[in-house]
């Protein structure tokens, strides 16, 4: 059976490659229908206010305007955890909150109508700071939520959903410690992954007919149509929802939270009875779409000289903006991920999920764990400094090994049955030259005039590689080809092609003979989608199982004709043959020219495996200008098996962008507490990396077979961004000789810290 894979592990040209390089690939905004209206949103100028009146008469008179909707015109659709956030409300809760929706025949008419809407507000005091918001004297964003503190549990993860991380006895833990450190670190720059393609949708409303309910078909931009449908069904209640996926121009997790733009377009289509396209502007994408949750950790850690963490205790404040739909889930997974990186018997980490008057937080790759570790690792670093522990030794000692365990998102304890990642950790350090560069805590690796270099490292692992359910069909045809039915759409990782490669390898047919169904919730079985890190293991397993099921059914079908038992058969290039006598073979067409065989595959959740990513970084800080340059990155990982070499390379390079390392260097969403405005909501003022700054990145990849599926892989893509930011903070702290407590390390922040230190020394 140990035949070489034909496609998995090989550089196979992505199925959509030619579509992409020729401009043929269709993203939502590229679709066009007759009578298509353009939808736009009128947004609030106030961060917190009750709408007293909205005058839309002038807007309605603009030629070409077909609908103007306000909170009074729409059904009471709501969502959130808890369900308190309405699709349009009488109250606005952040600058940029939706006040009115417009559908018009042209962009110009819609813009003209937007300029004519008049709103009168009764202003309310806003609150922007996560701890400030918890005070009784602060304004409440919702009548239903006291002190802006949201429940920390989402029933979606089951009745025992992990919220606070509490186990053991922290008091006895602290008493065993050689050092105890208490400090506050925050990753609150709410960076935005800003995929190139902005959020958008086309909605087509259908009135009820023949007893069927009202329905809406949505052409969307995200990678998880079924999950998207589930969310919309919970909001629109009795309305039937069909989701059609397209090429997705990047998501990084965020676009699952597209319910708002989708509801707006659906409501406008319902009112105008024409299809409505709504594509957010980049300004809306940054100021009115989801951000990473803000994370502040006020905590205490105890550590022994040998790097054992004896206790972690404190408060994790998570700023979710004006509502939460997934923050509880991120907190649950984040608490789980903390245990994968840090072994401690005693935890008392209380989480506080808080509403503030800014646009909401949503899903971003790193899903809770990155947010928590960006604060927890610097805190642990302070303890390591006091004990003179090399962080490399610490992380190597603490990262999960077979037999260790963790409470995962459902509150259940799982024993890890994956591989030992020590090899990857060691090889990464070797490649980077960690031992030569590490000079001790708060010590630069080199000094050259005003330029100082420093090194740092981070590590991340995630047991959501096996989360949630996936289903797939594989239909095989008499011509020796196969169709994969899966609800995944391509969002840049190349996973759609990878799943087709898996089908081709299981069925031993040419890759060209495998196609995929359109991404349509009406056609495909349920698929949670490539959320978190689940693509390779969870979705891959369902796909593999479906292909194997189809193959087995084919063997059963042809076994009598070959006078053999099904288990004695194998297949290659559209022929089924007897393994011991390959000349006894039949072409698949013998199933009957008018037949097809469909296999069904399912994956059931498994939280006992984890992936792993380690990043080492070297930075150079100019002590005079406060500028930090990234000099070098080494990533190291063990993925079980590489499915797609160039795809993996691309995923590892993305450690820089989309809220990875750059969220520590210069990326931030600037929320101005003075006015409540997000001031850099455009691609000129929001800082992003250009091709002029590409540091050398070296990737070390191991392939230690894992007990996942027949390809022994677990993937790594999602978490490529996660170890980087805290590694940068560590490197900059070492270069400057001062602990940096916040992200990103802007010149403004660094020069303040450097000058305070100089003043202290002068005294």
């Amino acid at each position, binding site marked *: 059976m140990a035949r070489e894979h034909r496609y998995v592990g090989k550089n196979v040209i992505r199925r959509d490659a030619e579509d992409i390089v020729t401009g043929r690939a269709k993203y939502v905004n590229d679709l066009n229908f007759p009578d298509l209206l353009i939808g736009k949103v009128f947004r609030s100028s106030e961060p917190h206010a009750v709408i007293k009146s909205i005058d839309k008469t002038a807007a309605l008179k603009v030629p070409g305007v077909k609908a103007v909707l306000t909170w009074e015109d729409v059904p009471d659709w709501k969502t959130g955890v808890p369900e308190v956030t309405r699709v349009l409300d009488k109250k606005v809760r952040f600058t940029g909150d939706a006040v009115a929706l417009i559908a018009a025949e042209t962009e110009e008419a819609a813009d003209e109508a937007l300029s004519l809407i008049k709103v009168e507000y009764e202003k309310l005091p806003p609150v922007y700071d996560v701890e400030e918001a918890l005070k009784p004297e602060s304004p409440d964003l919702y009548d239903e939520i006291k002190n802006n503190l949201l429940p920390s549990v989402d029933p979606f993860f089951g009745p025992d959903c992990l919220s606070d991380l509490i186990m053991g006895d922290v008091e006895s833990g602290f008493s065993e410690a050689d050092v105890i450190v208490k400090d506050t670190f925050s990753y609150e720059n709410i960076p935005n992954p800003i995929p190139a393609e902005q959020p958008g949708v086309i909605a087509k409303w259908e009135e009820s007919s023949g007893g069927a309910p009202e329905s809406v078909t949505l052409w969307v931009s995200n990678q998880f149509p079924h999950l998207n449908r589930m969310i919309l069904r919970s909001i629109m209640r009795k309305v039937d929802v069909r989701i059609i996926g397209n090429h997705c121009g990047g998501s990084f997790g965020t676009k699952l939270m597209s319910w708002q733009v989708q509801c707006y377009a659906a409501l406008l289509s319902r009112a105008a009875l024409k299809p409505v396209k709504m594509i957010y502007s980049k300004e809306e994408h940054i100021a009115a779409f989801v951000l990473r949750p803000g994370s502040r950790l006020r905590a205490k850690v105890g550590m022994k000289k040998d790097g054992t963490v004896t206790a972690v205790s404190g408060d994790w404040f998570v700023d979710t903006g004006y509502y939460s739909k997934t923050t509880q889930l991120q907190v649950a997974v984040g608490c789980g991920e903390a245990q994968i990186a840090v072994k401690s018997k005693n935890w008392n980490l209380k989480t506080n999920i808080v509403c503030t008057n800014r646009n909401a937080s949503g899903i971003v790759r790193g899903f809770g764990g990155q947010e928590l570790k960006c604060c927890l690792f610097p805190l642990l670093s302070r303890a390591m400094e006091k004990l003179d522990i090399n962080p490399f030794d610490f992380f190597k000692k603490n990262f999960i090994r077979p037999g260790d365990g963790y409470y995962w998102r459902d509150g259940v304890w799982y024993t890890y049955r994956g591989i030992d990642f020590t090899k990857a950790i060691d090889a990464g350090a070797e490649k980077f030259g960690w031992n030569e560069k590490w000079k001790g805590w708060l010590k630069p690796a080199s000094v050259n005039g005003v330029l100082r270099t420093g090194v740092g490292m981070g590590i991340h692992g995630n047991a959501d590689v096996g989360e949630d359910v996936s289903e797939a069909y594989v239909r095989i045809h008499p011509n020796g080809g196969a169709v994969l039915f899966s609800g995944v759409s391509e969002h840049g990782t190349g996973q759609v092609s990878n799943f087709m490669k898996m089908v081709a390898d299981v069925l031993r047919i040419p890759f060209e003979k495998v196609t995929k169904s359109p991404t349509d919730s009406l056609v495909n079985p349920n698929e949670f989608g490539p959320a978190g890190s689940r693509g390779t293991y969870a979705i891959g397993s369902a796909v593999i199982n479906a292909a194997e099921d189809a193959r087995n059914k084919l063997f059963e079908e042809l076994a009598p004709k070959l006078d053999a038992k099904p288990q004695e058969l194998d297949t290659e290039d559209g022929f089924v043959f007897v393994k011991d006598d390959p000349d006894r073979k039949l072409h698949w067409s013998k199933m009957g020219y008018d037949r097809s065989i469909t296999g069904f595959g399912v994956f059931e959740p498994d939280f006992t495996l984890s992936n792993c990513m380690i990043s080492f970084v070297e930075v150079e800080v100019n002590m005079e200008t406060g500028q930090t340059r990234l000099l070098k990155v080494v990533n190291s990982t063990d993925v079980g098996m590489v499915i797609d070499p160039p795809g993996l390379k691309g995923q590892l390079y993305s450690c820089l962008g989309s809220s990875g390392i750059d969220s520590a260097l210069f990326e931030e969403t600037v929320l101005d507490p003075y006015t409540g405005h997000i001031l850099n909501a455009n691609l000129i003022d929001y800082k992003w990396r250009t091709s002029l700054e*590409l540091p050398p990145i070296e990737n070390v990849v191991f392939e230690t077979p894992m007990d996942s599926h027949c390809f022994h892989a677990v993937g790594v893509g999602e978490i490529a961004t996660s170890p980087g930011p805290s590694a940068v903070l560590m490197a900059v702290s070492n270069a400057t000789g001062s602990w940096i407590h916040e992200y990103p390390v802007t010149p403004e922040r660094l020069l303040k810290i450097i000058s305070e230190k100089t003043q202290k020394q002068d005294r």
Partner: protein
Amino acid sequence: MSDFNNKKSDLPVTVNITVNGEGFSFEAGERKDQVSSSETLADTIRNRVGLTGTKISCNHGACGACTVLMNGKPVNSCMVLTVECDGSSITTIEGLKNKDTGALDPLQQSFVDHTAFQCGFCTPGMILNAKALLDEKPGATPDDVKEALSGMFCRCISHYQVIDAVMAVSKEKD
């Protein structure tokens, strides 16, 4: 009344442009079938010419997704008014394929071979900027490529693979 007003106001202005070698003639005006004064070249290419490989992302001339070649030079088509394009020759991503053979441009083929994209949204802009560079400087160096692509926003960080793809086509002798 100044004569400019008489001269310009009532007569329909016609805008003639060539897109990928094909001539198009648009009338300026406020009707839906006419090009509005504020319509950008990006919108005209997408909505009137029907070529959607030219993407609109930031709409602020900062991301390069809407890059087209205008008389051979890369420009952000979201920052150009169509009514100011009379007489221009435009090349979009759809215009790079060899018209006679249907073969991909060597740069397009190299992007395919190097998987020099992830989500693909910025890829047309990447390719067109690289194309303009290599047309002008067939022996471009990696630094030339980085400079030529510096106006391209890519969040997937495809840059490393893009540079490999462009350098594979560049005639640079090292």
